[in-house]
């Protein structure tokens, strides 16, 4: 066998290997640090090197049986492809986009589901209120014992008043922590994630959440503390309940898209809905965080009912404005 017969194959490695290694180095730097670590010349060279590597891959697949070479080129081309055609914005820029554009847009696009979820919450609240009014035993059915923490029909009016103001021996921190991290997040995320079971569990969760509200109002209202409870709830409740409603809306959107996919395939439809809903959910987490702050700090510091109402209403207006006020879009 003379070397002449091997010329084609040797040429590919010998002629292009330096370029492949240069591309490999550039992509490695970009992956390890960031694209900004590359100099201007490198950035200009990258697409050229990438296309050259792609053509090497095509040639190697058609003319060579050198497995090592083909596997190397496939891996190199895939890495370079994802860099060349991949993410162009920095994480910071993405976060900014999320707050300025994506989050309100996602929530806005869920408006129909949001209305339904709001309606369900109201229905749940009225049902809870009426049921507990007719028979106080219903209270325990709506409010789990751990959450009620002694607030039930057996408690004295003075005790109930105490839970609305002051810290009644409890540390504000523990309230802050338990509420923010367990109850709210669980209900919200479950309402979202269970949406893909055709939205049925989501619907139940939303109604139940409303029912709990109604049950509390029935209890405190029976003792003439309805207005005060409103203040206690509204300071963080407008943010928190709104967040849970949006989470429920996100779940309903996914359920709806699975049941009624329309023109798209069921999977594509669920994917589209899942992405929108996911953005809204990230926003919900932010809202719950704000609600936790209002609840943990704001409510413990401010015990005046009117100020509580003012803060709560302002928050609601802020959220509504943030989501639904028309704004200029980036692309005109």
């Amino acid at each position, binding site marked *: *066998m003379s070397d002449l*017969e*091997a010329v084609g*194959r040797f040429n590919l*490695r010998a002629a292009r*290997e330096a370029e*492949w*290694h240069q591309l*490999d180095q550039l992509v*490695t730097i*970009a*992956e390890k640090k960031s*694209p900004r670590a590359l100099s201007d010349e490198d950035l200009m060279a990258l697409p050229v090197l990438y296309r050259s590597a*792609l053509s090497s*891959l*095509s040639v190697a697949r*058609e*003319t*060579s*049986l*050198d*497995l*090592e*070479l083909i596997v*190397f080129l*496939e*891996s190199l*081309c*895939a*890495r370079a*492809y*994802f*860099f060349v*055609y*991949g*993410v162009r914005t920095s*994480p910071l820029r*993405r976060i900014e*986009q*999320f707050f300025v554009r*994506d989050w309100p847009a996602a929530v806005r696009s869920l408006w129909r589901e949001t209305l339904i979820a709001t309606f369900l919450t109201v229905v749940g609240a009225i049902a809870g209120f009426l049921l507990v009014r007719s028979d106080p035993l219903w209270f325990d059915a709506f409010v789990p014992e751990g959450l009620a923490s002694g607030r039930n029909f057996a408690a004295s009016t003075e005790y109930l008043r105490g839970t609305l103001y002051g810290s009644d021996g409890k540390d504000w*921190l523990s309230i802050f*922590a338990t509420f923010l991290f367990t109850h709210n997040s*669980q209900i919200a*995320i*479950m309402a*979202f*994630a*269970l949406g893909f079971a055709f939205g049925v569990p989501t619907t139940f969760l939303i109604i139940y959440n409303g029912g709990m509200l109604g049950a509390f109002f029935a209890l405190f209202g029976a003792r003439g503390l309805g207005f005060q409870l409103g203040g206690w709830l509204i300071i963080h409740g407008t943010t928190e309940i709104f967040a849970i409603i949006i989470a429920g809306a996100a779940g309903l959107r*996914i359920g709806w898209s699975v049941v009624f996919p329309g023109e798209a395939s069921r*999977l*594509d439809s669920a*994917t589209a809905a*899942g*992405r929108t*809903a*996911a*953005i809204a*959910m*990230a926003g919900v987490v932010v809202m719950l965080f704000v609600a936790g702050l209002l609840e943990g700090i704001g409510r413990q510091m401010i015990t005046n009912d009117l100020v509580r109402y003012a803060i709560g209403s302002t928050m609601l207006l802020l959220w509504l404005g943030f989501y639904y006020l028309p704004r200029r879009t980036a692309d005109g």
Partner: protein
Amino acid sequence: MADYAVLHREQEARSRRTLITPEGVDLSLRLADAGQRLSAFLLDLVFMLLILIAATVVAALIAVSGGLWRIALIVWLLGFFVLRNCYFIVMEMGPRAATFGKRIVGTRVVARSGARLTADAVIARNLMREIEFFLPLSFLAASGADGAGETATTIIGLLWTCIFLFFPLFNRDRLRIGDLLAGTWVISAPKRSLGFDLIAAGRPANRLTFTPEQLDAYGAFELQTLERVLRAGNSEALTTVADTIRAKIAAWDNVPDVEFLNAYYEALRIHLERKLLFGKRRLDKHDR
């Protein structure tokens, strides 16, 4: 006998997915297998746990030395929340689209459509992780801490986790529920270095010659299997392969195994590649 070459080709076809670049080349991406997915996730859990432990120690030190236990606790709680929710999301949003665990096993997240991986997809796939893994885990922890023997909750929690945990095994594309909903999949794209060519210059000249009939004994699949064996350099495997080839082509019993195999590899590859240039790709020894 359904032979290895066919099995191997089928397996390759099952794990490969077409992605045509705008330049018109098929990258034929390889999906990450279940083992890679699991080890990446376990690695990430270990990392998160380590970060959590380190943060806890720091918070405890601050709390003890400064007496600021409230602030330390708040910071810790927030840190835990951020770690649990943002670790995967932030890392997969980066240009590498992979967490530390995924980097180590050489996988990355890719949009199924082949388009750019967007933030919403990353958020969607990782928020579903919350119900796939963290939620049942917290249920288990809660029922365990209660000690009330709520076996029903525990069993349902375990069942729940198992359904989601094994979901990737029950579909062709190895999708999690999160991948399903976000329109993503995880591919294996490790960083590789290019090994030397087995027929490189500078190697001892090839003294052995083979007849065309001897070279027609095998095809590309056998050639590349031989390449793997030569690169691995396991002497037992070398002997077995050398004996098999010698028996098949009935020649060169007197030459040492490695020398014989290298020579045969070189001759066979040049033979097959020449045919390739004429448009004849011989897939394996049964392919005529």
